[in-house]
């Protein structure tokens, strides 16, 4: 089986769908001839022609509006928002339109679009190339939100997202495009090729939306994470010497509540990790749900380890990023609690 990094895996997913389904087309800023600023669409225009994969004007709202119209026609557009930090001009189209079209038309019109966007920090991108926007979408009924953490999942989830009949926000943790990242920024970068999940089949397969993965079984504490933070959580658990059960949520909405609840009921402790600002982040919803579903099993307060409630500051990248030191401290606190 070929070894792929996350960019190659995403590219392969798009390739598979362009090949399989003439109703799939791709557009976004710089995605055509150039292949995207992160190279996710590289080679696709050449292979499938300009009408299948093309550049769009710098108008995220226009991009999503056009995709909704195409979806209503019957196509399956996949659009790229160059950085998640730039998704806000499309917010109205996503929230008021894509999310509600099926509902308000009683199923008569649908918007089966996939919105791909690189997100998250850790690349010295400053406050406008680092944001984690997932909670702004998890609050919106009608949208699905998906975040992969490995090449294998990235490809399988992206194919599932494109084939899904509902609009999907597909956030790609750009820090781990080229290799997993355990939060130890001071150490040399590891390539994906050393990670088992870089073995990615060439053809079509899916990783179903709405299913979490228990990426490490453990008895003492449940760690809920997604994207880059899955790797940070795994490394932190190992370093802390805590027998943590680490769950990669993979899909935030719809959430795999069963896996979450089974784990916390078993461990009685829960640490939630995300890079987004804390207040009203998705961790708040996870905390509320765990509390609601597992109250009588909890032996310690649920902890949230998150980005601070500030913009992502350029010079303080590693003070902002919820790295191993903070995750380990939280693991230790809940174990004492």
């Amino acid at each position, binding site marked *: 089986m070929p070894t792929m990094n996350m960019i190659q895996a995403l590219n392969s997913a798009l390739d598979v769908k362009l090949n399989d389904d003439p109703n799939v*087309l791709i557009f976004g800023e710089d995605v055509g001839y150039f292949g995207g600023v992160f190279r996710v669409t590289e080679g696709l225009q050449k292979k499938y022609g300009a*009408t299948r994969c093309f550049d*769009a*004007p710098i*108008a995220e*709202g*226009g991009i999503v*509006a*056009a*995709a*909704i*119209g*195409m*979806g*209503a*026609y*019957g*196509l399956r*557009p996949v659009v790229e928002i160059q950085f998640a930090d730039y998704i806000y*001009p499309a917010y*109205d*189209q996503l929230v*008021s*339109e894509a999310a*509600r*079209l*099926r*509902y*308000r*038309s*009683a*199923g*008569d*019109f*649908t918007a089966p679009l996939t919105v791909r966007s690189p997100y998250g920090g850790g690349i010295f991108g400053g406050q406008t190339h680092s944001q984690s926007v997932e909670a702004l979408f998890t609050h919106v*009924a*009608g949208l*699905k939100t998906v975040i992969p953490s490995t090449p294998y999942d990235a490809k399988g989830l992206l194919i599932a997202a494109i084939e*899904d*009949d*509902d609009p999907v926000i597909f956030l790609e943790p750009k820090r781990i495009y080229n290799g997993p990242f355990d939060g130890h920024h001071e150490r040399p970068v590891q390539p994906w090729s050393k990670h088992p999940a870089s073995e990615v089949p060439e053809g079509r397969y899916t990783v179903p939306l*709405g299913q979490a993965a228990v990426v490490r079984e453990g008895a003492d504490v449940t760690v809920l994470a997604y994207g880059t933070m899955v790797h940070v959580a795994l490394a932190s658990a190992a370093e802390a010497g805590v027998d943590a059960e680490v769950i990669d949520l993979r899909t935030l*909405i*719809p*959430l795999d*509540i*069963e896996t979450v609840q089974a784990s916390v009921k078993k461990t009685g402790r829960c640490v939630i990790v995300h890079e987004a600002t804390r207040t009203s982040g998705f961790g708040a919803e996870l905390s509320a749900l765990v509390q609601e579903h597992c109250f009588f099993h909890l032996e310690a307060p649920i902890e949230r380890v998150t980005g601070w409630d500030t913009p992502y500051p350029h010079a303080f990248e590693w003070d902002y990023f919820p790295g191993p030191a903070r995750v380990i401290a939280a693991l230790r606190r809940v174990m004492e609690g």
Partner: protein
Amino acid sequence: MVDTALKRGRNAVVLSLHIPEPEGRPGDPADFSKIKLPEPGEVRRPPIEVEPAEIRDLAFTLIRVLDREGRAVGPWDPRLPAETLRQGLRHMVLTRAYDDRMYRAQRQGKTSFYMKCTGEEAVAIAAAQALEFDDMCFPTYRQQGLLVARGYALVDMMHQVYSNARDPLKGRQLPIMYSSRQFGFFSISGNLGTQYGQAVGWAMASAYKGDSRIAAAWIGEGATAEGDFHNALTFASVYRAPVILNIVNNQYAISAFHGIAGGQRSTFASRGIGYGLPALRVDGNDYLAVYAATAWAAERARSNLGATVIELYTYRAEGHSTSDDPSRYRPQEERERWPLGDPINRLKQHLIAIGAWSEAQHKALEAECAEAVRAALKEAESVGTLGQSRPSAKEMFEDVYKEMPWHLRRQRQEAGV
């Protein structure tokens, strides 16, 4: 170190902030004297292959066909068979009767909200007739005439307005936010302007598939200020999308006169120029002019020549909605003074002028339409009005997603429905 050249003397004028004002407010006389109207028939009709750059002037004039005597004059006369005209007249009369009745129903407490298109019927109905049935329309809440002209059942519109058990939208939408894929009527959003870029996307999809269907979108002059308007024009221009981008300039956006949207500084049609799109400015109360302009734009679109912007110059004869009272912000007799008259009267006059219609026939038509509305209303009300009848409350949780996720299933249980 600062350049000395940067420190020159300054213009003596003190700046002041300009706030646009309309010609009149309640108590003032209605004043439309600033409106310059070219003569009917005066504006040339270029071939559809014309370069947009060669017809920029058409964005600043007004395409008119019907003259004061009801004659059709000039190159834009679509030369339609009398039967088509009579159908158009019927659709307009029926739409007005429907509006009047549903407005009354709201006043009677039978529903929460209603919006009329009185005075603007030609905008939707002539367009519907100039388009093919399967072209996709992306309307605002003021193009109910499209549904009427395409033969959608009045009673289904009423079910929607009443959110009753037969509401095709299952009680989920505000009254008048119709939707029908079958009738090529895209789901109306409460959010202004959003449909404009979606129409362009639909048209791009049609072109992508090598289809022959085109899209048509409508937007109010007030809503042209939204970013969606700009996005739509950009995408339509860049990808030469087969779409007709209609701007319905009915002079008002709720209480705000057109100047708040920029209407005192240029025409709305002229917005198209900067995108290299052909732009026509059309008498929106002239059924023949609307038909002809739509047909021209549709032919261009179908010939792979791309999008056309059409400003339909008209007047919102009544309140914005049942929540509005226009006497609070505009002169009372504006409606009567509107220089372009009423679209129904003008088409009627034309039909009479060409000997294809009579006052008696018109009376009969009005009676027939009133009766059609009455019959439909009876049927709708036999199902029920808002609150008396409604779809199953289960419907609240359906169609959020294609398949209901666990959290909605649980909430539905919690709701006990």
